[in-house]
């Protein structure tokens, strides 16, 4: 069957949905709630295209081509719909793409990553992260007013992580591993979209205080799934700086261990349902409308496979390193 995509005739194969036809023909269409080969239902509308005949905006991920169909993937209305869908999703998405400490360091140190190695007891790796940016670390941090400690999210819970003290402590233990020659491969790309966690509620503060037991006391607020996060990728591409809507709800920030190295953070979830449709008696929906959430009943944790981390379009389900 032949259809027109942006006025170009394209052959649609049996069983293919519009997005598959269009992508094969070279159009780049974003998508969050769709994953090739996985069960899905249209939800996000990031893959919107226009049906030129009816003028309607349709999701390309579930619509099947019909004879004589003509679609537009570049129209202004299409772009607006995609951008708005992302903005709306972001307005209900609580996450720090990057940890604030890493973002503010004037030397470009990935503070959160450094603390991650420190907490894992991998001191060598921690020192490598340091060595990538500082030639004389003690001096560099001494001269600095330490904005990293000022913006530390732990500070709003009780007291900031003593970042500089930890750096000094490590250097004192093992000065040899330090090597100031390496290139910084962890420098933050500030052109990427930055989602912000916002303020903690008092219950969240209590939860975080009780649940965080790492040696550095770091909350590790940087999103563990940021590298593969498609929400961030498309938001950057769409040129979104920040959501224009004042968020009226705040999903509680919680890290729920599923088992193995798998972890679930509901506050980052965009409710696409991929994890629900692709697990048997595992994740499920509760509530409806804006109050709809995805939950994982305790009893169902055993039914979850690690593949779900790959399916999740954001960092809501991820493997801990």
């Amino acid at each position: 069957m032949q259809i027109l995509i942006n006025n170009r005739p394209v052959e649609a194969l049996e069983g293919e949905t519009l997005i598959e036809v269009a992508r094969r023909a070279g159009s780049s269409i974003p998508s969050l709630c769709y994953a090739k080969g996985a069960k899905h239902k249209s939800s996000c509308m990031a893959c919107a295209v226009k049906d030129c005949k009816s003028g309607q905006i349709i999701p390309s991920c579930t619509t099947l081509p019909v004879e004589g169909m003509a679609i537009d993937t570049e129209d202004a209305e299409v772009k607006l719909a995609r951008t708005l869908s992302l903005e709306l999703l972001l307005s209900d998405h609580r996450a720090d793409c990057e940890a604030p400490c890493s973002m503010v360091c004037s030397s470009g140190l990935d503070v959160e990553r450094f603390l991650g190695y420190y907490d894992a007891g991998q001191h060598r790796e921690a020192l490598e992260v340091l060595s990538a940016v500082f030639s004389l670390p003690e001096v560099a941090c001494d001269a600095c007013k330490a904005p990293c400690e000022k913006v530390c999210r732990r500070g709003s819970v009780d007291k900031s992580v003593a970042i500089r003290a930890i750096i000094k402590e490590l250097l004192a233990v093992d000065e040899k591993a330090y090597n100031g020659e390496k290139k910084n491969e962890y420098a933050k790309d500030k052109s990427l979209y930055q989602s912000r966690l916002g303020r903690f509620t008092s219950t969240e503060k209590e939860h975080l205080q009780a649940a965080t037991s790492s040696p550095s006391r770091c909350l590790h607020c940087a999103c563990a799934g940021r590298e593969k996060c498609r929400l961030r990728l498309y938001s950057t591409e769409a040129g979104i700086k920040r959501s224009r809507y004042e968020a009226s709800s705040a999903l509680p920030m919680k890290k729920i261990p599923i088992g193995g190295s798998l972890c679930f953070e509901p506050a980052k979830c965009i409710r696409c349902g991929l994890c629900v449709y692709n697990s048997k008696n595992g994740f499920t929906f509760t509530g409806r409308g804006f109050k709809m959430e995805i939950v994982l009943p305790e009893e169902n944790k055993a039914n979850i496979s690690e593949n779900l981390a790959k399916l999740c379009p954001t960092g809501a389900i991820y493997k801990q390193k």
Partner: protein
Amino acid sequence: MQTSENTLPPCEFCTKDNHSNVLTERTDAIIERIGARRATIIPLLQALQAEFSYLPQEAIERIYERTEIDRAQLISVSTFYSQFRHIPLGKHLIKVCTGTACHVKGASNVYDAFIRQLNIEEGSVTTADRMFSVEKIACLGCCTLAPVVQIDEKIYGHVMPGKVDEVIIDFIENQTKKEKEELQKAQRQAAGEVRLGMGSCCMASGSADIYKELQSASAQLGIEINIKPVGCVGVCNKVPLIDVVSADGAIDRYPNVKAAEIKEILHHHFKPAGYLKRLKNNILWHIDTLHTDATWDNVVWKPEHERTGLISSFLHNQKHISTEGFGFLAPLNLDEYTAHGGFDALQKALATPRKEIVEAILKSGLRGRGGGGFPTGKKWEIVAAVQGEHKYVICNGDEGDPGAFMDRMMLESYPFRVIEGMLIAGYAVGADKGIFYIRAEYPLAVERIKKALALCRERKLVGSSIAGGSFSLEIAVFEGAGAFVCGEETALIASIEGERGFPKQRPPYPAACGLNGLPTLVNNVETLSQIAYVVKHGSEAYRSVGTEKSKGTKVFALAGKINHGGLIEVPMGITLNQIIEDIGGGVEGGRKLKAVQIGGPSGGCIPAELCGNPVDFDALIQLGAMMGSGGLVVLSEDDCMVDVARYFLNFTCDQSCGKCTFCRVGTRRMLDLLNKICSGKASLADIDLLEELAVNVKRSSLCGLGKTAPNPVLTTLKYFRHEYEEHVKGICKTGTCKDMVKYVITQDCIGCTRCAKACPVSAIPYTPYEIHTIDTEKCVLCGLCVEECSYEAVKKIGKAQKASVKP
């Protein structure tokens, strides 16, 4: 879910020792009765809730053990539908209707009043002694009696915040009375017949009491009459309404009858059986008439045409196709229905080739009455063309619009007509299974349809080889569990299949791949109720009614600020002004008409100056509104349009299924912006942001709910933008938006202290013989003081405004 385990209250069904045994046994019995398949989850949960009044955790665990239903499915389904409760409620449930008509008449104040009166703690909905629970309900469908409250089975109309105590007392008294009273039936030789409307509106305004009074009065006076409950009479503003049919067949109609008047009416028309009784009654009647207060303004026994000319004008201009036989057809009298030509159309259809029936419907120009207005014949044609041994026909009775109750009335009052329509539809498209999908909030409709189906089955009108022919259609009833989105056909199908009511992307259409993957025809109740007329009288006769592209009649629920609300059936093409002025008798209290909200949450507000436009599918869409399912709420100059838009958005936001981004987050963000505007904290840029969002939610949502949800906002922005701009400046001229108004007491106050006594939050200090004052900080703006004051000294003014001082 998890919370229910912790808050499990003492069980009222059993002693503590055998609690789980009893519960398990009962649950097992229910599973045995309903079934253990995944698809039976909704009926199963409904049965459990009927048994235990909520879903106890032990019963749920038992379901996991004994059925195919797993945890993921149960959590997903039971939290989607608003009917299901995971924590028990009080013994009696007070449902406060928050439908459109009730909203504009102050339902939220009524709800607050119940919470206050019953001393319910903040965050709870149940009294400490677990006697009463209060909940808001989308719409009880008694819009003409707004504000309406239902306590258990009893409906109270016109409940004002100051009257909630009386309502509660009346309910408790009635409960005790009910237990004592046992009425006797004495129906032998009848001198005549009294017909009494028993639709939900009639019941709400006291028809049940009239019915009892008729029974006891006739027994007491020795007058033997047939008391015949009939369906909705349509004149909801004049109920309770009775028709007295004398032995000679003459009919006298009495609108707004009171129980006290029944005896007199019976006296007037009928003579008691024995001479002595007659004499005694005569004497007693004269004494009664002379010695009661009622004598002074007693015009009760005058028949309707002397009493008021209103009804004839109300009924004039209407045309009855769906509601043919209103006022005289008993809902469940099959003989009477057939005597008046019922099932003639079915007989005719069964003797005609299927193709011709489809063509007749196609030619008639009938369009779906559920809202979208898709040509019915076209739908039939598609389903009929699909090859398949098994097909479904579904009657969509999931009417959920706040402010609409046509489908409920039709199912309650004309069950046979809807069944007949479904049979014809089933025959025409070659279906072998039929399902009535009726929302659970309509218990009377469910009951009547079930009984009507049983009666039809006895007569071989439903089931196998109907009317002795080769056509068979098994019809079952499925009760919806409370989700507005299930009015959308794909969501409706998903819910019958035991899933959340998520709509599906079309194509494939249900016509090709619907319920259980089979070809499925879904038609609205009202659509089906028009079928018999088309088949019986031919498509030409049907086409002669209506406009070029909208044929036939449409049933509307006329409510809001109107003198005579009710259920009306009018030909397409009638203007809104005709409906309001000629049928509805103008705007309530002589106020000026501001707008008409048509089509409920999917429709829009049409300003007064455009009410000369005809009512048809396309004309309404041109105006930015929509026919919707037929709610028609009249708004006067006292109504705030921004608040109306916010009200509908609140509804759709709550009812959104949550599947797609634009509807789930988009409507919520629109509501946030509207709340901001109504609180006076918004800027002009917020109005633009709202408009952009509204346009895109409409354009990019996946199903009909989301695509139409912005209509109330878009139409009010189009026609009443100045009101939005005023709100940004902090002015709500109508005084509706609570953040912008306050109550003050003027110099007219005589210091009678009634307001101080009435105030539920002690915001008015008790200062006898002095002018009272209101503490704005404490005031909750319930308006009780306004109701209470006889000197009109309590005024609602803008917050910034100073109390105007009168000399």
